[in-house]
């Protein structure tokens, strides 16, 4: 979020690269602080405090979250799915989140601002957030709900060839929905008297969600944004259709980046209808490129892009400037 970043620029400064010497009394305090966490959490914390190596951070953070989750829900965390939602799946309320933060601050010797917490919704958000803080990188963009107006404003693809009604994007994934209305022009001929959503169009819809991710969720370099004009399809692998989709069906789409290395971004994607699997794509690869943030075009209808929909709170920092231009300025 622009506010989370702009109001807390001080918190994004890197931690000292050489960690403070780790004394035996520090170890005793750490052991006490983590006494209800798994031994591996404690070990990872010791390693981090001795070496400052951010590789150990995810184990510490997950170990601390686990300690605050009711025992019967901890199994969910074992699989460490980044999409696991803190509130809905793990029963973590805002007070528990505060307890987690206080312990993380104490153990990793960092400080976290309240404003920064509001946007952490999934386990992946937390891991990425802490990792960015430790490495002194810009804070990640949180999971945001993107309404249809904004999708239309930022996407190079436009109706009648846009197959997303709504979407949410985080730094680690994007999810979207599309309802097959029956009015799609190609359904007149696909097939005769039997409208069926073409599998190629469903693959296109996943590709469009990946485009939205590149524009709204993907990490960028300082001062750069992904240019909508540079994104093109290059290939896909392992595509299978499992279910015939017809007018009235609501497609639930999700993509996750597997590899991001300029100029190629590879995603895995899936479409479900309710709980039924419809389409799987093991790999969808797009090309993309950065442009300078200053030269990036402004979205056509300039929807205020300040996360009101999620935070339910007006933000003074909002401006008509697109998020991706503002975020690293």
């Amino acid at each position, binding site marked *: 979020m622009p506010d989370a970043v702009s109001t807390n620029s001080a918190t994004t400064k890197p931690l000292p690269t050489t960690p403070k010497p780790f004394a035996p009394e520090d170890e005793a305090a750490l052991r006490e602080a983590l006494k*209800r966490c798994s031994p591996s959490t404690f070990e990872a914390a010791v390693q981090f405090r001795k070496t400052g190596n951010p590789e150990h951070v995810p184990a510490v953070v997950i170990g601390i979250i686990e300690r*605050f989750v*009711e025992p019967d829900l901890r199994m969910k965390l074992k699989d460490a799915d980044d999409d696991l939602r803190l509130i809905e799946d793990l*029963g973590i*309320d805002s*007070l*528990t989140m*505060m*307890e987690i933060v*206080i312990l993380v*601050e*104490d153990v990793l010797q960092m*400080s976290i601002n309240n404003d920064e917490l509001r946007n952490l919704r999934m386990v992946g958000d937390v891991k990425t957030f802490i990792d960015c803080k430790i490495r002194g990188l810009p804070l990640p963009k949180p999971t945001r709900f993107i309404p249809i107006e904004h999708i239309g404003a930022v996407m190079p693809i436009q109706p009648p060839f846009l197959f997303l009604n709504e979407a949410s994007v985080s730094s680690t994934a994007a999810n979207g929905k599309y309802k097959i209305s029956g009015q799609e022009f190609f359904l007149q001929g696909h097939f005769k008297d039997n409208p069926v959503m073409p599998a190629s169009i469903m693959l296109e819809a996943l590709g469009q969600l990946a485009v939205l991710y590149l524009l709204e969720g993907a990490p960028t370099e300082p001062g750069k944004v992904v240019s909508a004009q540079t994104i093109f399809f290059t290939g896909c692998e392992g595509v299978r259709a499992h279910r015939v989709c017809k007018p009235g069906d609501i497609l639930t789409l999700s993509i996750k980046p597997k590899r991001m290395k300029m100029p190629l971004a590879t995603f895995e994607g899936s479409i479900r209808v309710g709980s039924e699997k419809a389409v799987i794509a093991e790999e969808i690869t797009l090309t993309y490129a950065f442009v300078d943030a200053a030269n990036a075009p402004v979205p056509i209808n300039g929807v205020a892009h300040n996360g009101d929909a999620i935070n339910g709170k007006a933000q003074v920092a909002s401006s008509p400037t697109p998020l991706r231009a503002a975020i690293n300025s």
Partner: protein
Amino acid sequence: MPRVFITGLGFITSIGNDVATVVRNLRELRHGFEVYPPFQKPDIPCKVVGTVKDFATDSTDPEDWTFPARYRIKRELLRSMAPNGLFAHCAMLQAIDDAKLTDADISNPQTGLYAASGGSPFLTHYHHERLQKFGVMRCSPLGIVASIVGTLNFNLVAAFRIQGASCGFSSACASSAHGLGYAFDDLVLGRQKRMFVVGAEDGNLDAILPFAGMRTLSLQTDPNIASRPFDAARDGFVATGGGVVMVLETEDEVIRRGAKPHAEVIGWGQASDGYNVAISHPEGSGSAAAMTNALRSSHVAPGEVDYVNAHATSTLIGDVSEARALRAVFKEETKRVAVSSTKALTGHGLSLAGVMESAFCALALREGFIPGNAHLTKVDPECAGLNIPRTTENRQAEIVVKNSSGFGGANVAVVFKRAM
């Protein structure tokens, strides 16, 4: 006017953590005192406490606490509790069980909860120390709701999904008697159909020791003679913690649910000394007025009262003051009305005392006995003229009065009747 019945009780006390044990110890006059390890230091003059057994709450971290396995409490609830919250939560579970209440009976706009505790000086101290040492941002977000006065109602109302009236009462040692009185009023006025009345105290060093500064605690080292209300050799009160819950219901609810009441509450009264911040009025004027008001509102003549469970805490001034109040109210009946203080067995539960001893009265009415005044060797001449049984009398009382008094000269009297 709707009648009000006591349909459920729960006890975590120094003389027992269930109804059966409490009844046995009341009948057999077995006390709950122990030499209290945290007091065994040269600079701490008092040594004995009415201890809560089978609970270990001496850590500031609720997840370290141990308590009987029959109580299962999620971390999410435990984390905002003080020790008195844990005691009360367990007593709530017992009382709900005892009254056979369903979830729907507990959580509805017609069921409320009034609570009283002195908060948790223990946790207040801990959190303030952290605040000063590590800064406010390293303090537990739940430090406040676990510590301040009101912690009991905050926690219980949330944990048990109470939707009716709720608040806390703070009149020191009269607090939970006030809670009981106002709960009775809400039922009589038709505002509620069911009320939980809760009293609880930590009963640990931080809660008790400040009273030594007032010179009101007994300095006895022998648990067997430390608390002796009305005795000439008494030298102060022995403190205790724990939690007691009472379920009050209107007659309609009792009939609808087919509940078996322990006793009936038929009225209450209160009055203030208007005299001193901490010392009882020498003639017990407020206490006498409270009893008179209670009897009048209950339509009971002094001659109909069989037993008074006295406030008498075993302090020099307080017991005499109450004895004078009793003589003033009961006049020629004084020699007949049985008076005893069960604090000789439990110790003084502070905010907990009123509802705990009211619950004892309900048990005495249900079981048909009048608890004796334990540890009474020689009655203080100033308390002469009272009928203080030294052993338990196995006879059925019909009307019982419970006295409570708190700092500032707040006095409450509640009148109970055998359930019929």
